[in-house]
């Protein structure tokens, strides 16, 4: 009897690729619900919180898992290998969080070549003490045998570039309520069609933002700390670069409600092919000038256009990565 009950339990795995760990923390942020998850499900792999080894996953039958929440982008050979392994072992694969969904912050590395990234991390970096350069090696022979580290790919890819994904749960990190909703949906078998973006809306963030919106005419752009903002008024109208107009709603307007501009972590709304393209289009159209010199001055003050346009979604853009990253 005990065994049948055991078998009915949901079999889940939670994994991180190229990620910061924030998504895992967001799962813990479901508070006491996490105890229900533990009662409802066997967590077979969760590097952040429970024991469980890759070998245990390899030993599983195909489709033995009911759900994998995969957060993080695919940056190296380990990310890819485990993504492929978990794909074989699970019925439902969820790309959780911005990194798995659209590439996330790690995706910004697609602007640079591997050599540039390597040099920046290990050689040319203000935090490296002079004479104390330590370089990683792919293989190292030690007394116990040979140690290996994963190989670094040419570019950051989304989870869906590597394996088939059933659902996308956007956000950096996704709101705990939405994580809860996804777990409950799987538990009750109440699933949307495969390929759906879950836990988010089909509208742009501006649609849910409560700030007053009037005419947008900007003569200077500000970073949030450069201006004392009007808490009631649209941030873009105040010259603060807000990505709300090109971002899918569903987060609960957390950033604009706390005085920070939207940075675009939920990715583009449906039918937008390229979030960054729409972002620069929106930003340039609100500049209040018809004078070439003035236009160049106003728009020239925006630092790091790439970083603003694709803060979370460079690998999901039409061009995906810079020609330097070959």
């Amino acid at each position, binding site marked *: 009897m005990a065994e049948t009950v055991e078998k009915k339990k949901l079999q889940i795995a939670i994994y991180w690729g190229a990620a910061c760990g924030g998504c895992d923390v967001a799962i813990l942020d479901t508070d006491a619900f996490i105890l229900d998850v533990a009662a409802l499900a066997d967590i077979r792999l969760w590097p952040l919180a429970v024991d469980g080894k890759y070998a245990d996953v390899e030993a599983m039958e195909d489709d033995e898992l009911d759900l994998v929440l995969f957060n993080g982008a695919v940056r190296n050979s380990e990310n890819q290998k485990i993504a492929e392994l978990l794909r074989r072992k699970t019925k439902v694969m969820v790309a959780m969080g911005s990194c798995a969904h659209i590439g996330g912050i790690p995706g910004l590395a697609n602007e640079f070549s591997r050599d540039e990234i390597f040099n920046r991390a290990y050689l040319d970096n203000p935090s490296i003490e002079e004479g104390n350069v330590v370089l990683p090696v792919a293989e190292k022979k030690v007394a116990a045998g040979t140690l290996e580290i994963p190989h670094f790919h040419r570019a950051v890819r989304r989870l869906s570039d590597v394996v088939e994904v059933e659902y996308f749960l956007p956000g950096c990190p996704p709101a705990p309520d939405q994580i809860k909703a996804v777990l409950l949906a799987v538990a009750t078998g109440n699933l949307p069609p495969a390929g759906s973006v879950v836990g988010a809306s089909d509208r742009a963030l501006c649609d849910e933002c409560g700030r007053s919106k009037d005419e947008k005419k900007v003569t200077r752009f500000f970073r949030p700390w450069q201006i004392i903002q009007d808490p009631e008024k649209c941030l873009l109208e105040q010259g603060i670069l807000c990505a709300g107009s090109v971002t899918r709603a569903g987060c609960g307007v957390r950033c604009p409600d706390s005085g920070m501009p939207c940075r675009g972590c939920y990715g583009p709304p449906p039918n937008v092919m390229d979030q960054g393209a*729409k972002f620069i289009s929106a930003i340039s159209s609100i500049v209040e000038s018809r004078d070439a010199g003035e236009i160049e001055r106003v728009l020239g003050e925006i630092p790091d256009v790439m970083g603003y346009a694709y803060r979370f979604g460079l690998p999901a853009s039409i061009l995906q990565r810079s*020609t330097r990253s070959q």
Partner: protein
Amino acid sequence: MEYEPTIVGFLCNWCSYTGADLAGTARIKHRPNLRVIRVMCSGRVDPTFIMQAFASGADGVMICGCHPGDCHYLEGNDKAYRRFQLLKKLMAAYGIEDQRLRLEWVSASEGERFARLVDTMTAELKELGPLKLPPDLSLVPGPCPDPTAVREVTHG
């Protein structure tokens, strides 16, 4: 065979397309490398179009509109100009050279100017060579078709 660049041209209906038409009716010779797409206004050209053009194999993109102050819709070309400022920066970050993206004003009477612009851009791109995008670039989201296209690297 000699390399011939492919240039996609977005020409506004009221000035530049008419200017290109004039080049044709006046039998002004120019290089055949420009693929023309007629749009109602240069202000209609979404940055998405430019990225799509490059991703689909264009070596260069030329946007042509009415001269400042002459826009049929009053300020569509100003909008194009503003968008172009950020677009240039974005393309540079993508590693796509400046010469591959141009915004030019061509009036309905400037058939000769249009022809010379096409010639100049073609010559510049010939010198620059084909646009080399990363090999596994795919417009279709989904599994990476060729895993070996993203080769692994070992440092050290």
